[in-house]
């Protein structure tokens, strides 16, 4: 081949490489797309509404007589009525702020919204079959929810928005996500609403609240995980106690939460979270987004004083005090025999009763319960006479308890060394817990009686009073009854 041909060959190779290089395809380098969130554009005639108005439409739907001049409050127990927005109207958009996040896995396919980022008055739960949601709807984001075709109702005891399914509200299809939810460019810091446990009401659910000066129960803090213990089925329910008032509530965590296996913080402080109802819709619970919402940093816990000498092998033969309530008259409040019977709040106190059948009493027994009492608060005391621990040795304390669906109500066995013996002085006295005494628990069989064990008091000194204190949950519909019998205090 001659030189000319060779040159043309080289030329041809160069040419084709040039052609090749110029025939570009998309390379590895992609510019980041514009991920700035632009405000949505709405059609002319769009109506904007708020959660209060949405709730109003539901309560109107719930109201049988449909009298708009006599509006009834929202009935949070009515889970069979929904209000559905029509399609053939102007677009109706709900404006609200995101307060929940599934980043930590504690919320699933729902967004909790409230009407403002501070001082909110009402919140609503939006159900949507999309996971995860935090990748688009961050806490504090203002969003618009297109209500046309959606339904509002009560599910699990809280106000809920979603797709109607019969007379219930179900999840919005993922296919409709972008049609239904529009994001605003506005993002605010959600200011949690400070709230005492005693101030919880149904219309405060779905709000991002702040519980100040709280701690986990001393038997759980630093011991149990949030939701990864053997007994945790779907949610881990942990007791959060107030240090400023005598009340507690459940902090509920999904077993699917990323932090489910973290151990409960042992300190005292603040917890922020969404106030809602448990799955059955019976009880107030609080749910956090991540453990950033749990700030229990102060080491100074507010645990009650405890009297704990363990259990004795046997009781002494010298009886100091006993009552089997057989001398009480049924239907009346317990009285006499040195008892102090005090109703601190509400209408219910310790009374004598007899009952037969499965849930039988033991002859005449004592009981207390505020179920369906409609009391805003129920607190009842039954206090023994004073016992002298210095004059007697080896003092023990025994009793039996049973319960009838105690649910949200609690029975505590307390002691005091500084009570002055007067009804007026009960509130100001220092009461500690007799922690070794077994008191029946909610999941015990209601028909059975349980012995306290022979509770040893001998490690304590001085003059003490022993007390049975009943506390209702604040929602009498979820309270129950405790029964008591065979109280006996003995010495060597």
């Amino acid at each position, binding site marked *: *081949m001659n030189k000319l*041909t*060779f040159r*043309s*060959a*080289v030329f*041809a*190779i160069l*040419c*084709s*490489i040039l*052609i*090749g*290089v110029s*025939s570009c*395809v*998309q390379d*590895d380098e*992609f*510019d*980041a*797309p514009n*991920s700035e*969130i632009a405000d949505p554009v709405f059609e002319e005639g769009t109506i904007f509404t708020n959660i209060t108005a949405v709730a109003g439409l539901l309560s109107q739907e719930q109201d049988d007589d449909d009298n708009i001049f006599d509006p009834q409050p929202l009935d949070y127990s009515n889970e069979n009525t929904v209000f559905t927005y029509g399609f053939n109207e102007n677009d109706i958009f709900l404006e609200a702020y995101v307060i929940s996040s599934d*980043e*930590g*896995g504690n919320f699933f396919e729902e967004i909790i919204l409230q009407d403002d980022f501070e001082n909110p008055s009402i919140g609503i739960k939006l159900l949507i*079959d999309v*996971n*995860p949601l*935090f*990748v*688009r709807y*961050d806490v504090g*984001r203002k969003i618009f929810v297109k209500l046309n075709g959606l339904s509002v109702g009560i599910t699990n005891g809280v106000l809920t928005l979603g*797709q109607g*399914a*019969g007379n219930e509200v*179900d999840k919005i*299809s*993922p*296919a*409709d996500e972008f049609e239904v939810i529009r994001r605003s460019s506005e993002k605010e810091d959600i200011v949690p609403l400070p709230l005492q446990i005693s101030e919880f009401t149904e219309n405060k659910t779905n709000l991002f609240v702040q519980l100040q000066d709280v701690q986990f129960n001393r038997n759980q803090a630093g011991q149990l*995980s949030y939701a*990864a213990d053997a007994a945790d089925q779907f949610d881990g329910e942990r007791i959060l106690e107030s240090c400023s008032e005598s009340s507690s509530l459940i902090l509920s965590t999904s077993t699917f939460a*990323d*932090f*489910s*296996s*973290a*151990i409960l*913080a*042992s*300190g005292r402080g603040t917890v922020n979270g969404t106030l809602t109802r448990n799955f059955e819709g019976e009880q107030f619970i609080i749910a956090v987004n*991540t*453990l*950033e919402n*749990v700030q*229990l*940093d102060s080491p100074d816990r507010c645990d009650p004083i405890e009297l704990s000498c363990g259990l004795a092998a046997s009781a002494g033969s010298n009886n100091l005090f006993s009552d089997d309530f057989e001398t009480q008259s049924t239907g009346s409040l317990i009285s006499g025999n040195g008892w102090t019977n005090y109703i601190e709040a509400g209408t219910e106190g310790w009374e004598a009763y007899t009952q037969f059948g499965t849930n039988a009493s033991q002859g005449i027994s004592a009981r207390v319960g505020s179920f369906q009492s409609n009391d805003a608060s129920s607190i009842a005391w039954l206090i023994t006479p004073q016992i002298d621990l210095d004059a007697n040795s080896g003092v023990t304390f025994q009793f039996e308890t049973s319960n009838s669906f105690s649910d949200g109500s609690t029975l505590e066995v307390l002691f005091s060394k500084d009570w002055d013996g007067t009804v007026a002085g009960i509130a100001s006295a220092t009461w500690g817990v007799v922690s070794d005494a077994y008191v029946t628990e909610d999941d015990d069989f209601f028909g059975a009686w349980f012995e306290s064990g022979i509770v040893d008091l001998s490690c304590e000194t001085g003059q003490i009073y022993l007390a049975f204190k009943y506390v209702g949950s604040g929602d009498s519909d979820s309270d129950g009854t405790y029964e008591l019998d065979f109280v006996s205090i003995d010495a060597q």
Partner: protein
Amino acid sequence: MLKDKLSANFMKKDYFIFLISMLLTISALAQETIVKGSVLDGTTGEPIPDVTITIEGTEIVTKTDAKGEFQFDAILPLGEQVLKVEQIGFETKRYPIVINEGKTVDITGMTLNFDSSDKKDLFIISISDDNLNSEDDGLTDNVSGLLQASRDVFLNAAAFDFSATFFRPRGLDNANGRVLINGVEMNKQFNGRPQWANWGGLNDVQRNQEFTMGTAANDYTFGDLAGTNNIMMRASKYRRGGRVSYASANRSYQGRVMASYSSGLLEGGWSYSVLGSRRFGEEGYIEGTLYDANSFFVAVEKKINEKHSLNFTGIYAFNRRGRSTPITEEVFNLKGRQYNPLWGIQNGEQRNARMREIDEPILMLNHYWDISSKLKLNTNIAYQFGEIFNTRIDFNGTRLIESDGQDTFVGGARNPSPVYWQNLPSFYLQGQNQSTYDFQQAFASQQKFVNDGQLDWNKFYTANQINGYSVYALQGDVTRDQQLTVNSILDAELADNIRLNANISYRRLNSENFARIEDLFGGSGFLDVDAFFQDTRQSGNINAAQSNIRTPNRIAGEGDKYRYHYDINSDVISSFAQAQFKYNKNDYYVGANASRTTYQRDGFFENGYFPNEPGIIGSFGESEQIDFTNFGVKGGLTYKITGKHLIDVNGSYFTKAPGIRTSFANPRQNNLIVRDLESEVIQSVDASYIFRSPIVKARLTGYYSNFTDGSSVNFFFSEAGAGLLQENMTNISRQNIGAEFGLEAQVTPTIKLKAAGSFGQFTFTNNPNVSYSTDEYYELTFGDGTSALENLRVSSGPERALQLGFEYRDPDFWNFGVTTNFFSHAYVNPSALRRSGFFPQDPDSYDLDQIIRNDDDRFINISGFGVADYDENVAREILQQERFEDYMLVNVIGGKSWKIDDYFVGFFATINNVFNQEYRTGGFEQSRRTDYLSQIEEGNNTGGPIFGNRYFYGFGTTYYLNVYVRF
């Protein structure tokens, strides 16, 4: 045009010339019987080197030298014989001659015409296609690349027309074939398969190939069942000239430009060859399959003297490709066979999340030493380095929250794939009693999937932006290899009819494996922990989530290694010897090989699940060394009944070390070696009847191969094992039995009829052992630890294939051909888990997490939780292996060439699957929900199975057009 006619006349004159030569030989007074001559390019008149000249019906073969001349040295058969003259890239010619004792036959000036059909390009297309898409699952491998050099009618059909459909001759895959470049083996130690992309796009310089069928005698290596293909890429072996071509297609790439030039032998003993090519495409037949490949080649050879020659060959083939994935019938019905869920639009451009990039240059130095005319020694040093990586979306980015002295990791998203099971209508139609709401949801999801159904890239960026960390990132799984191979190949003619070949070889591989952050999608960094596993405190191991305990809670940036990082080091020493004997009636050969292979893992991350603590098989540092000693013997016989009728028999027995891939149970996380790992034992025999006449060429072969102690690995997500499992299968026995034939009849000088067919049965012959590994345990087995695969088919493409075709070759340099191809008996790849002891268990009756937690050594067996009312008949029905429907593909091929001055211009085109047949080329059973009860549910769902079989669908009608200029 005038020149065309001249050359046609010249062809006709061939006979005249040879008659003259005959007369000359008769008059010559020679003592010896000699046949000699020369071969020229029919159009240019240039001598053609390296042409194979065979006396048909004998094994007497020689090759032309650089001047295109040849001479037979062997004892020649007398009388009427046929000389076969063949060279890759040229049309084969057959000359009748008469050999008389003591006379010289001199046939100078035989001509060969350049083969304009250019078929070979097509093989490369199908290879690149299938292999680049391969999930390394063995399903998509194709041996057609191996077969491209074959002149066998059947293998030609297999390579060219059957390759579109995963057809595998004799049910063998790539790992059963050997590919050599200049005598250096290129199969990867990782899985035993050649990585075709390493030399893709070099078609013009890969025309010199020597293919050996099966284990037949091969000059370089022991070989393997599917054959051996040695690609000669020596500078001196290329004929002088250049070629520039442009190809357009719509299969894998859209365009290819290629230019090459070879010098031929220059003064001073130098020769060189260069090539550059580029293949490109925004997408192929399957959506979103970007193609971006550049290939460069250079070879320089210096003939130092008559005895020594030194060659350097450098290959750089860079390949970047968007992948596709097999789909379920549900997805196929909604989106069709071109659908690919792996891409989405970003800033107006298609972006594929699963890219494969291959960048592994090869450098080699070859020394050729002709010690004497009968003794040759070839020594090679080859070095290959570079990386292969595959990308995917890592959707498990988390952030660290420290609360009360404890680390918790929040974040992590769900698989963003549009075909994720919860995105499809079937998810909403589980069971049989659907409410209106369920149907609404199903319809909505169907609409969404049909109207969109692609990845949402913006979501990744938004998520990272609003959350301030990388929830999503692009993960690259990188393998960075450095491999050195040294070998020496001896070729000795011990006697006129006895030849000895030997090879000794050493290979050292350092393979570094790690995951790398390729793109943070606008995020600030990626927390290097495994957020899947949250129950770490329960197991008492608070470090479990850490990819590397030694750098806890490290934030990885772009380009940083994360998740896993380890080396595999491998040494292989092998040797081979073979003797070939040639006699008048019989030719036979015997060969043997022996080798030693070692593997060792060396971990650089101390994985949180597998810390280096006493009693735990750790992750950091060196594993045990595994070694395998292997040997093999083979032999074969060709019996010549007459020159027309031959019987050919081959047999072999050999063992093969498992690949690196199947040797480690969970190499990304620990040093555990697969239990009971053995070398595979292979026994094979085949027998052929071969018929050759000037008009008809035919071969009929029966074969039987038996494999025992095989091993394989598989990866999938399964509820059976609580996560992403590595399935390790050992003690696999299988057998391949069948027959194949090829028949070609040159009915007129211009028309050739072809028929080829294969009928096989490829079955498992035992119940192999299966075990599973994840980050939570070393080994999980079910029941007796086996999988009931016996008598099931090994999924290897259609077991039956038949081709009928014709070719018309006009003397005016155009040609046209049609083939019709029938396929049947292709089977789905069976799930081993579905046929393991897991199947009859009731997974709701035990808590796997609990069992794992309570187990001390993390070697777990699950059994004794059987389904209460297990019905054998129902089970049998569920476990029935699906057979795909039969189908027929029609392919058309044609081309033409012209000579203009000194240039040859031509084009060549094919249309594949002319009738746009829809067909499944392969598929596999999903193992996600695979127990008896779940399978019954899957069969009863209103919306069909949620985890149905996934299929590879064949291409519809596609074309390929190549235009070239040659000089």
